[in-house]
């Protein structure tokens, strides 16, 4: 096989893996949009907050320690424990459910029936607020997140491809793990929405509020549940991205990368988020590989957005979107 083709294959594979990570973020958007028609601008910050909380809990950091010390003149910073990853993840999930409850109780509940743009604005406010809370709780330094996920080059794949083609593929182990986890997450989410009582209620609420009330569904409960699930997805995305490039403010900007994914896949489709993510991931890597050298490189930064723009012109509801919906 010619080298060029092999190299393109490797790039495609890496693109698929990157796409999975985009899809993870996009999933959180889709969940909330489906169930409540809210475009949640804060999804990226939720990923940041989740990752920060996970690091803080793992390392036994005292939340709001700077604030507490400044007020009471104390010198506490650390509980002095080092928690195993799974326990820390569970505790973080508890925090995310608490956050979901707060969002519903203090923000969204008071905005029921408002225009989508109002709800969208509220989530922008939520994003800034949450960013501030995250800084206040855990500090603003760049943190290293290591809960024991495998990292570095996948040697098996490298060896196998070298034996086959005489050229070893370089694939990061973390990307492989991320792909597997994302696949499991999607299966779990689909199973949840199709086969459980709560999932059925969630779909009902997404479809018609009045009808949902008339069959005994509490909208409040469903919305807290949906925000919790979105929080869980944010946590998974936060773990993956945080492990990859450290937990820092820029993590919240991955939300921007999810936008073109959503435009491609449609705001209302879970499979759409996955396929959209993969197309963007592969598209931008291949484009950079093939066209990049002709235009001076660095195409990864804009390719996704241009692709999304093209989609908006020809198929505004996205590949899997249910209907034309209001853009934000």
């Amino acid at each position, binding site marked *: 096989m010619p080298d060029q083709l092999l190299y393109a294959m490797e790039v495609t594979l890496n693109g698929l893996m990157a796409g999975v990570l985009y899809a993870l973020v996009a999933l959180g958007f889709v969940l909330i949009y489906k169930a409540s028609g809210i475009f949640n601008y804060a999804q990226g910050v939720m990923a940041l907050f989740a990752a920060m909380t996970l690091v803080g809990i793992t390392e036994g950091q005292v939340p709001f320690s700077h604030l507490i010390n400044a007020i009471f003149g104390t010198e506490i910073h650390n509980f002095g424990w080092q928690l195993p990853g799974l326990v820390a993840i569970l505790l973080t999930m508890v925090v995310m459910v608490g956050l979901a409850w707060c969002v519903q109780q203090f923000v969204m509940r008071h905005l029921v029936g408002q225009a989508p743009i109002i709800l969208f604005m509220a989530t922008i406010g939520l994003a800034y607020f949450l960013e501030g809370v995250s800084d206040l709780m855990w500090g603003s330094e760049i943190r290293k997140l290591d809960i024991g996920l495998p990292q570095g080059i996948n040697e098996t794949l490298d060896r196998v491809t070298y034996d086959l083609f005489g050229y070893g593929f370089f694939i990061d182990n973390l990307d492989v793990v991320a792909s597997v986890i994302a696949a499991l997450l999607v299966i*779990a989410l689909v*199973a*949840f929405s199709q*086969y*459980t*009582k*709560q999932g*059925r*209620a969630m*779909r*009902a609420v*997404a*479809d*018609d509020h*009045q*009808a*949902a*009330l*008339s*069959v*005994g*569904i*509490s*909208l409040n409960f469903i919305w807290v549940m949906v925000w919790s699930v979105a929080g869980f997805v944010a946590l998974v995305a936060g773990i993956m991205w945080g492990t990859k490039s450290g937990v820092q403010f820029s993590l919240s900007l991955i939300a921007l990368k999810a936008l073109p994914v959503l435009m491609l896949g449609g705001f209302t489709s879970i499979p759409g988020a996955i396929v959209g993510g993969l197309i963007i991931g592969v598209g931008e890597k291949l484009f950079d590989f093939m066209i990049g050298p002709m235009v001076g490189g660095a195409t990864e930064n804009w390719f996704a957005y241009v692709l999304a723009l093209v989609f908006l012109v020809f198929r505004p509801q996205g590949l899997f979107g*249910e209907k034309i919906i209001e853009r934000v």
Partner: protein
Amino acid sequence: MLDQAGGYTTVDGRKIGGVVMEMKNITLRFGGVVAIKDISFDIREGEIRAIIGPNGAGKSSMLNVISGFYVPSEGEVWFHGEKRPPMRPFEVARQGIARTFQNIALFEGMSVLDNVMTGRLTHMKTGLFSQALWKGPAEKEETENREVAEKIIDFLEIQHIRKTPVSRLPYGLKKRVELARALAAQPKLLLLDEPMAGMNVEEKEDMSRFILDVNDEFGTTIALIEHDMGVVMDLSDRVVVMDYGKKIGDGPPDEVRNNQDVIDAYLGVAHD
């Protein structure tokens, strides 16, 4: 003819039981507009009770008060001998009051069967994890609820569209699916908001037959709103007549039909 303690017997010989729901001096205001003015009536077990009146009489408002979508400004709602505290609509639904809507509120994206199954939500008790794993009690519960849903689907003769997404159905069938969803909850009281609205004669006859059959077969207590006098008079055991938010008549169809106030309201005699 109304025996206060134990109910009464209808013209066609059905036994009607005690009071299921009692509305006591209900008043409903929206700002300065009075939608319902001091209305009292009761609904008895097993009867088909109609609320009729010209457009804008406050019928739908009354139904919304019963189903908890509106909270009355004054007055009390008594259900099964207990005064009902102010409740949100989903809590009312969980008490066993199911309803349909004038402008059909179905889950358009779901199949007919899924829509009917949402009517079973209030009867499902098992937790999230056992459902997700599809084991034991959850499986048994799903099967049982499925059986109830299928029985109602058969009863309303919509087997052939079980798997069809609701958005693809014609209007008349949608109305029937909505009735099926409400029935799936096996309600103690079934509220129908203009079940015949927008239907042609044939569909109206079908719907009337289903309403009578439901009442007959399951003994369901039904309260319905209609402005089509003819249909109501044939269907119902007792009728409340509303006009401009006030009650102007209450009794069996024949009695109401000859009530001068009712005739005036329907023929449009000027109010003084």
